[in-house]
């Protein structure tokens, strides 16, 4: 048992799309200041899990508790409570400027001065965004868009930051920058992070603990190092066979 009460606790979660069961009895927990990774192949249900916690997809049964309270049903209330999702594929508001995208991230906050302060922090974390503040979001490169998506999420000052495949479609060097930033947010500010990845080796190196999701079931859990060494993980998710 962890000494702290979990920040997020998912218990026996079932999620369906019509008759199709996408998540099957999923249980996991995230403690404060942890980086938790969920790894799984295409169609495993990773995005479904993220969307369900962000309340944009509803669940059939089970429970989700955030900070000891049942998860709210409306996405905007979930954001106000402190959970922010960086969605798969970034979903930047292409016609809006980088600055407007960032401001939208702070939509739930009314403290103008502090929002400006957060924007300054985000621009320090991702200096390339500063040079492009007045450019349309859609004109940014894939890597810059991912920075913008993460920066935009940070603008809400989340307690729990959720990232859906932050490495998707990015060049290795950009992925490194991205994951460095994620580590820094966790180590320097104690930000709690839940991320899902197909890129298992990267995620397992970075995280404290991880879960393996396979066709809607959690099949394994453990700390990142352990899973990296595990035979089954190595052969199924890291493409390494033998010893």
């Amino acid at each position, binding site marked *: 048992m962890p000494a702290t009460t979990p920040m997020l606790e998912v218990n026996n979660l079932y999620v369906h799309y019509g008759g199709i069961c996408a998540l099957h009895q999923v249980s996991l927990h995230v403690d404060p200041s942890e980086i938790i990774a969920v790894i799984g192949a295409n169609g495993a249900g990773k995005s479904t899990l993220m969307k369900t916690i*962000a309340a*944009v997809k509803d669940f059939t049964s089970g429970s989700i508790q955030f900070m000891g309270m049942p998860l709210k049903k*409306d*996405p*905007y209330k979930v*954001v*106000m409570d402190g959970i*922010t*999702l960086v*969605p798969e594929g970034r*979903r930047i*508001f*292409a*016609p*809006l400027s980088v600055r*407007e995208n960032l*401001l*939208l*991230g702070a*939509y*739930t906050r009314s403290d103008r001065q502090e929002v400006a302060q957060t924007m300054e922090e985000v621009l320090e974390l991702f200096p390339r965004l500063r040079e492009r503040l007045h450019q349309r979001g859609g004109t940014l490169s894939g890597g810059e868009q991912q920075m913008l998506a993460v920066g*935009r999420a940070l603008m*809400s000052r989340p307690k729990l930051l959720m990232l859906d495949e932050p490495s998707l479609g990015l060049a290795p060097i950009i992925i490194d920058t991205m994951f460095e930033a994620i580590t820094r947010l966790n180590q320097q500010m104690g930000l709690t992070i839940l991320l899902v990845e197909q890129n298992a080796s990267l995620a397992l190196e970075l995280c404290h603990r991880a879960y393996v999701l396979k066709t809607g079931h959690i099949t394994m859990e453990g700390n990142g190092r352990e899973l990296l060494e595990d035979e089954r993980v190595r052969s199924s998710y890291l493409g390494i066979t033998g010893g």
Partner: protein
Amino acid sequence: MDLFLQQVVSGISIGAIYSLLAVGYALVYSVYNFTNWAFDAFMAFGAFMAFYAISSFFLPFWVAAIISILLAIGMAVSTEKLAYRSLRLRKAPRLFMMISAMGANLAIVNLLNLFFGGQFRRFPVENIGTFSMGQVSVGRMDVLAGIISFGVLGLLWVFLYRTKPGLGIRASSIDILTASLMGINNDAVAFIIFAVTGVLSSVAGIFYGIKYAVYPTMGIVTIKAMIASIVGGLGSLPAAVVGSMLLGILETLVAGYISSTYRDLFSFLFLVIILLFFPNGLMGKSSDEKL
């Protein structure tokens, strides 16, 4: 030349009324991707409310206008709640939304008929006459309609482009799901958008009622606003205004120089010709940018 200028001024004033209507359609379309067929009933409703506030309660024009605007906001917001919201939450196909909208339209127009009767009424406002600029004589009411309409559109522009809720609405028009991930309350956005359509429909209804007459099916004129917004480029607000101004001016010129009998024929002809050369409308973008 003088007649020409006179026609243009009159065209601008009717174009301004079309603009209010076209923007009302475009605003809903840009976020929800369906045509709000109930909108023209809001217009008739707004005109009737102002009409009765003046003729039965003897209120001054401005007070009647404000009451009409408030009631039209109520009507638009309730229609959204009763006819659209549950469909939207269930992600129903937009065809269902349109059918629901047509239902709401029929219901409102029929209620107006039932309570007030179908006859044409002259709007009870005194004729404030004309003034002349050189050889050109201009209707004061036309100028007032133009000024108020553009004032309303200007305020809407400031709201959309200079305020936080406006930014939220623009984001919702681009990607409503991601907007909700930003903490934007979709229901609040719907409330604001429909409240705005209430204002637009009522102001348009009042000025159109003054220019022509007040009757339950007067909203049929919104077909012109539809033409205008297609000519401009569907779903875009500036395009809706440009299309409306062109159509308004074209119509008055046709009515002035050719014959008012052919006015509507020319409107459709204009639409067909524009679409022949600009399939997305004059300023239409097929991209995701709408507001």
